[in-house]
């Protein structure tokens, strides 16, 4: 077959083209240098990278904020079962009240927590926060935009965060691994990154030194827009708190843990009691007092001619001006306004460190008629802990004072607190903190912000079986003891769409803690002690009385005497009692019962409450206290393993060196 091509030789171009192709080839080889061709920087340079964060002041602060965003919302007693992560068992897991649902926070009461299902597992979030703090501290020196002041503040925040996350872990789990201060590389060998738990005292040392660093760097006071951020005082307050915990019997020479040792044979919990630990706590409390920045919240005495002002001061209480007596203050309002949102948070000098309070628990407090389910049921033991107005213990009250009969006359005090004529004598003439904290049968819930036409203002709430606290259609949603907590309910609040609720503050640390802690630590310590900052504390009865009584006077209660304070055991009981009342429903008792090793007795007690099965017509029966054990929620118990929370199986599985807490 003939084809197209006749061979022709005439179009041979020789050298020029060859040379051309060589040149082209060489140009080709130098197309671009290697790394540049593969560089993806142009696609990502304008995105924030970890390195660029520490070149800009704004970014650095935002990154610190991002770390702070990992802090848990601790303001809910139920944990945050209604959405968001569950944070702590200390609200619903204390002995103050029962809640008749299985919540992640109260499961521990019923031994419903297991290693494989711990329900509360802040482990990884805390360590994420610690890693971020480490990154901040390692890189902040690169930032040229920061002034010296800003740099100190930022570093202080990072130290505070690191300390706080460790504090959070140690409070829940006891000993935890203390990591190197430099964040691990992401490709680190697993064995190298697996660190065993440090003994408790070493953890405390780390926390204290970080809080101390923070205290040295953070400002003493902040402007209002930064009011929720930590200050020098906040750092010291948490340092003092962990020192107080560390000095307490659970962690100070606790022989229960004598077999519990790390790989080097060092006991996780110290086996020799060291009274000096109390002195260390006392010194830190004293340093906070000496800052002269904080004082207890007080509201001036209210006098009017209608007889609805401040209640007359009992004769047992000094009438000198606060802090030497309660003559010039309204004790009910002074205490209540710490919690009920009456005042701007920034103006309250008692707050040391505080956050906005989430209101999603409120439905547990509000009775059914005004929108809640009233299920938060305070135990009778807690009720009975409140003293009489003149300072006598409730157990010392007369038969008449403890009567269930109606008082018969209504009145109002502190301009806002109405007392119904139907209230029982036992709910009358109690100390002001009782009224500020407890919702009892025939208590009036003013709900003054209600704008609707229904008759929902000034509701007199009753917990009878046919009372208005109960949702008749849902038997499970009812109060079990006849008492609830009203501490975070402002008098104008009502759980209704046609109303406004005051926003509230959750005090994470307040000055009353410093005073009680100081008194407790002084009572426990021996001799005299000077800490690294040069503050000297001495076990001194007058000092104890001076600061302890401030808390009493602010509450309109008589102070303690030299005799009380000189008796170590009596003083110990007085302080514990005061912690219970002053910090009721503030998520503190859970930890206190454990650190004092009082938990065993406190929890292994029957649930006592009023007979809420009685109807309105059965008043006498209603006020008969009885043991409630008909539901699982009333069968709480405590065993030794519950001093510390179990570490989740998922955490243990990833670090072969971790050991579980005893008993789990």
């Amino acid at each position, binding site marked *: 077959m003939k084809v197209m091509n006749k061979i022709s030789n005439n179009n041979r171009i020789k050298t020029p083209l060859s040379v051309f192709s060589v040149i082209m080839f060489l140009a080709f080889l130098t197309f671009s240098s290697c790394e540049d061709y593969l560089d993806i920087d142009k696609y990502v340079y304008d995105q924030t*990278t970890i390195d660029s964060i520490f070149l800009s002041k704004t970014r650095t602060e935002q990154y610190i904020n*991002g770390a702070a965003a990992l802090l848990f919302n601790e303001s809910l007693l139920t944990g945050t079962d209604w959405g968001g992560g569950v944070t702590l068992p200390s609200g619903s897991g204390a002995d103050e009240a029962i809640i008749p649902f299985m919540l992640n926070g109260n499961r521990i009461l019923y031994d419903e927590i297991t290693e494989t299902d711990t329900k509360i597992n802040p482990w990884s979030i805390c360590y994420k926060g610690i890693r971020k703090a480490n990154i901040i501290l390692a890189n902040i020196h690169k930032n040229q935009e920061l002034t010296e002041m800003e740099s100190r503040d930022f570093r202080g925040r990072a130290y505070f965060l690191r300390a706080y996350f460790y504090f959070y872990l140690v409070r829940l789990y006891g000993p935890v691994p203390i990591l190197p201060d430099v964040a691990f590389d992401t490709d680190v060998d697993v064995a190298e*990154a697996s660190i065993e738990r440090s003994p408790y005292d070493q953890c405390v040392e780390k926390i204290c030194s970080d809080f101390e660093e923070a205290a040295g760097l953070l400002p003493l006071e902040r402007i209002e827009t930064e009011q929720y951020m930590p200050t020098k005082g906040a750092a010291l307050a948490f340092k003092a708190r962990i020192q107080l915990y560390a000095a307490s019997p659970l962690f100070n020479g606790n022989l229960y843990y004598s077999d519990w040792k790390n790989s080097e044979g060092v006991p996780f919990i110290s086996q020799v009691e060291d009274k000096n630990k109390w002195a260390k706590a006392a010194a830190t409390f004293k340093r906070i007092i000496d800052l002269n920045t904080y004082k207890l919240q007080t509201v001036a005495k209210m006098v009017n001619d209608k007889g609805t002002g401040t209640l007359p001061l009992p004769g047992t209480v000094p009438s000198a001006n606060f802090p030497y007596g309660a003559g010039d203050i309204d004790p009910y309002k002074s205490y209540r306004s710490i919690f009920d949102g009456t005042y701007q948070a920034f103006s309250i000098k008692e707050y040391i460190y505080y956050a906005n309070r989430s209101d999603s628990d409120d439905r547990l407090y509000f009775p059914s008629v005004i929108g809640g389910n009233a299920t938060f049921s305070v135990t009778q033991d807690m009720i009975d802990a409140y003293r009489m107005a003149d300072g006598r213990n409730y157990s010392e009250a007369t038969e008449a004072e403890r009567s269930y009969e109606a008082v018969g006359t209504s009145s109002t005090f502190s301009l806002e607190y109405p007392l119904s004529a139907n209230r029982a004598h036992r709910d009358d003439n109690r100390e002001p903190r009782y009224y500020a904290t407890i919702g009892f049968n025939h208590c009036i819930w003013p709900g003054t912000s209600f704008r609707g036409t229904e008759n929902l203002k000034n509701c007199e709430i009753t917990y009878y079986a046919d009372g208005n606290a109960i949702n008749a259609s849902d038997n499970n949603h009812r109060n079990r003891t006849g008492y609830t907590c009203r501490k975070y309910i402002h008098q104008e609040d009502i759980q209704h769409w046609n109303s406004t609720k005051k926003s509230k503050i959750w005090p994470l640390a307040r000055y009353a803690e410093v005073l009680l802690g100081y008194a407790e630590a002084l009572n426990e310590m021996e001799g005299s002690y000077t800490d690294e900052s040069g503050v000297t504390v001495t076990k001194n009865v007058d000092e104890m009385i001076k600061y302890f009584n401030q808390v009493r006077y602010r509450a309109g209660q008589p102070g303690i005497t030299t005799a009380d304070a000189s008796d170590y055991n009596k003083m110990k009981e007085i302080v514990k009692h005061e912690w219970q009342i002053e910090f009721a429903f503030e998520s503190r008792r859970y930890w206190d019962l454990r650190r004092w090793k009082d938990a065993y007795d406190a929890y292994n007690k029957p649930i006592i409450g009023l007979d809420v099965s009685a109807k309105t017509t059965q008043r006498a029966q209603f006020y008969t206290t009885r043991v409630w054990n008909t539901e699982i929620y009333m069968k709480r118990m405590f065993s030794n393993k519950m001093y510390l929370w179990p570490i989740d199986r998922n955490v243990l599985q*990833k670090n072969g060196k971790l050991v579980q807490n005893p008993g789990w």
Partner: protein
Amino acid sequence: MDEKGEALVGVSVSIKENPGNGTITDADGRFKLSGIKSKQTLVFSYIGFESQELFLRSTNERMRIVLKENVNMMDEVIITSSGKIQKKINVTGAITSVEMRELKVPATSISNMLGGRVPGIISVNRSGEPGKDFSEFWIRGISTFGAGSSALILIDGIEGNLNTLDPEDIESFSILKDASSTAVYGVRGANGVVLVTTKKGKAGKLDIRVKVNSGISYSPRMPEYVSATDYATLANEASVTRGGIPIYSEVDLALFSNHLDPDLHPDVNWRDVILKDYTWNQQYFLNASGGGQIARYYISAGYLNKEAIFKQDKGLNRYDTNVNYNKFNFRANVDVNLTETTTLSLNEESVITTQNYPGYGDDTGALWEAQANLTPVTVPILYSTGEAPGYGTGKNTVSPYVLLNMTGYRKSYTNNNKITMQLAQKLDMLTEGLSIMGLINLDTSSWMWQAREKSPAIYYADGRARDGSLNLVKKQESIESFYSNSTQSDRKYYYEGRINYERVFDKLHRVGGLIHAYWSDYESSKYKTALTAIPKRYNSYASRLSYSYADTYMAEFNVGYTGSEAFEQGKKFGWFPAVSFGWTPSQYDFMQKALPFLDYLKFRASYGIVGNDRLTWDDSVRFPYLTLIGSSGSGQWNNGQGITETQVGSSNLRWEKATKYNLGIDLRLWGERFDATVDIFKDVRSGIYQQRQSVPEEMGLVTLPWANVGKMKSWGIDGHLSYTQPLDPIDKSKYITFRANYTQSRNEILEYEEDIKKYPYQSAVGYQSGINRGLMSLGLFRDEYDIQNSPKQEFGNYLPGDIKYKDVNGDGVVNSDDNIPLQYSGTPQIQYGFATEFNWKNLNVSILLEGVSRVKYFRGGNMYNPFSGRDTGNVITDYANPNNRWISAEISGNPTTENPNAKYPRLYYGGSWNNSVNSTFWLQDGSYLRLKNVQISYTAKIKALQKFGLQSAIVSLIGENLAVWSKEKMLDPSQAMYNGTKYPIQRVYTIQLNLSF
């Protein structure tokens, strides 16, 4: 001219004393060369022929110069890495090169031709669906559990797709298996490389070839399901045997068998409803090649059409709803000599594929699942009142007849265009043997599917109203026809440059050198995030030095310096060195004298390191070294915006590293009749990417980073041998050849990032990658006593006749903790093939047997779990056979039917959880031996037709997949792991006509 006296076109003719002066022969085999002086020597050379030298005494002689065809296998060439042609004798790496002659079968894709034919390949074909009937294959088996375990495919040096390449366009291909041959591919070479070269035009007269074939195919193995009566009877047994009441009454049973109530008592064989008995496919192919001194061309066009075996109801629609695969191929390879030493080549390839599907979706799985899921009595094909039936709303509970015929249709198109321009320059004038080459390739493809979808309302009749009319419950509203589409496009640039040096000094020292560089850049619209859409780029520099002394001692050094955009700045590039040695003792004179039958013996050894840079198979994770930042709240500090890491950067990420060892031997005996190659290999893959799992939580990472933490080794052997027996000492067209090949690849995971396991056998470490895991079955429970005395099984309730499991960890209960690694995985460890070819003049018969072994899978799914959804869950006839299952004596009236060794356990209406968990009870051997191919061809050279230019015609009868021998009888063993939910592998008979003009 050649030995047969036919003129050779394009033979290069040069003058030895003056190499710059030369020409090539024209179409008639003549040449004209001026400037020849007497006493000079002319050199004639042509690829495939031995060179001839002619000493000219005078310049006026007329001569016929006969070139001898080069048949010496010693000089056989082989395509090695970087597309370099190397003499086979000098190869020291493990390379299998494949003669296309062996592969000439009408397979749709090369990938289906490899298994059992090519040593070093493990391949599996899981589906017979047109357009999805491609094989997945691995060079030397699976050697990583990381993202990519597939080989790099290079077509004419450019990354490409084997599945769309027309096999007819292939000139040759090579499989590069060890590190010495793949080192130059650096971060992409770890899983081996397949190099394909396409045909090029040869100077000479026009050559036209036409191939036409037509095939008929059917599904040789499909599960058989029971009829309505059998189903209902079994359903009653299933219920009664567990203490229930019969599901169907005597009246129901009568209605099922007499077919009087097709609405409520249907008897549907879904297989017959939606499947045809056979289907057709056609393939047409045309190429033209030729050219002359200036230019040579190869142009081809191909068309393939495959229709699926679904039975569409043609009367129902004016459009096609059947699954269908169409492919158009076009290729043009043109080489132009710009100067005598400069060649410009232009290669163009276009592929358009079109696929058709029923409107409900492009996954035919539902049609197959429905067969196992819908019982003969669940719903009729259509209700007698015309409504479309469906038991539920899921695709596999709607009548497959409705899915196939009444849901509209969808079509998808893929278009791919590749253009490659290459400029090669010989630089012998600088130094002999030097040449350079530059290449640009543009590759664009686009993809679109469009659907015109609809659905009738789906009803389920749950009974009859008083008046006898059907009680139809609407399960799904009707959907009016609506249109939708989706498109995707991508493009790739590729540039390459090469410097080549090849020279023999003193006839003893053969020196070769190569410097090679390339850049590639790929972008696609399929990536939807700012990060994943960053172009994928490679840049590589590679070099090779080879030296051989007297073709007896050989050494080769390869080094790749390769980078990819995937790593952080400064860590993008890596060195990939490899070294190999060869020794050919058969070159020694004394060997040749002592062992005259030994034609050739070579030992090879290689060692090297290659890489793999891909993190995940779909590129969903890229740049894990970047720490990405996103916003967060500021929480309780209430201090404005917060930011946090949304991805924690992984430090020190590098590529997965493959350290490869290879030892090989090549042997030829008895005058080249016997040929064998055996290689043993070991591949240690370290630094396999894994997202870290067991990182202590105390590290505080926001996201788990990726790291090079996995490690795996694979090892094995591959080789082939062949023997050719001439049947006539003179006529070389009479011979018989036997070939065999064998590949075995085993692997073991050495390091694997995982949680701390409760029991050591739960770890992946120490076992084969992808090993089947399940419980250990102890047969069926004999009786209540057996149950009482056995550990409690935590998979629902169970009775005698249900599967009894071993409490492996001895904790007193049988639960998921007792899952242990069993045997093998779904990927065979061994693949082998036997072929024989008989040629007698114009008749050629070839037979290929292919097999795999050391492969297991679990039986399961609806196929082996009857009544799984109570009203749904079909029963295979094998289960229905009373000899095969455990039947309680109360039902059968015969205690021997309570057979604890029965093939199937006691029936369970609703599906037994206890009996359907993976265990050795259901673990099935997937080994098979397949008669993969039989081909009978006759070559006709009809003188009468030669007048019209027809040189030869070959008529072939080809049968594919003609028989399978395996333990699995109901399904094709290579896809049995899907338990009947995949399109069956087809048996195909093809008649083929090859014409050459």
